């Protein structure tokens, strides 16, 4: 029981230290589990919808170590996109232990 309480406190500590992710559009997020996708680009005036998708990922473990290249340029390169039309992002989080962020660009 003591170990369980200690684990809970540890998980809360990790959640407290994860640093607040911030984006222009943030849908409701779960404290225990989150797996969402939301718009990153919010100017859709005359945006052409195309088929190509490129992703770039960064990751945070326990809110202690964060690594990755989630830049727009890398996302475009990964999807072999030469002209970006619009972008979304995805965010995955389990108890603040593992957080994964993806920049998703769409283009041609």
């Amino acid at each position, binding site marked *: 029981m003591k170990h369980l309480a200690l684990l809970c406190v540890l998980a809360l500590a990790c959640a407290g230290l994860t640093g607040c992710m911030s984006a222009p559009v943030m849908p409701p997020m779960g404290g225990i589990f989150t797996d969402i996708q939301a718009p990153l680009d919010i100017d859709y005036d005359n945006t052409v919808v195309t088929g190509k998708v490129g992703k770039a990922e960064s990751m945070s473990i326990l809110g202690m170590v*964060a690594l990755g290249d989630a830049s727009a340029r890398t996302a475009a390169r990964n999807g072999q996109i030469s002209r*970006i039309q619009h972008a979304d992002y995805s965010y995955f989080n389990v108890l603040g232990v593992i957080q994964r962020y993806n920049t998703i660009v769409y283009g041609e």
Partner: protein
Amino acid sequence: MQRALAALMAAMVLLGAVGCVAGAKNQAARAGFHPAYANRSMPFTPLIPPQGFLFQQVQAPLSLDFDNTEANQPLTGSSTTHFVAFPFYQQLSVSVMDPASVELAARNGGIKEIVYADYETFNILGVYSRFTVNAYGR
């Protein structure tokens, strides 16, 4: 021992929460992307991916209007600022070297027309952090 550990963890939760609240409170006051204006060692940008308290090296988009953006630009320019802080005493923080501005990044890369920009953050223990603006253009 367990009580001490639990107390320590609780203190960390509190500090984390205070950090978040303080960050949100100062959000409106921060006009630019220069870490010197932020009340913490992490820069404030429109998009902030999940961060690392002990170590962080992350790149993310800085410009968020991608409509008709040509991704493959011939020129890349960057500008970097360094930031030294005392944990939990951000008032004593120091920002040194050049400002990390898009203007300076473009100048460093010989860019006449900026098309889009990314940024990179590097942080060790919240004590030393580096903020780099990467501008792409022609």
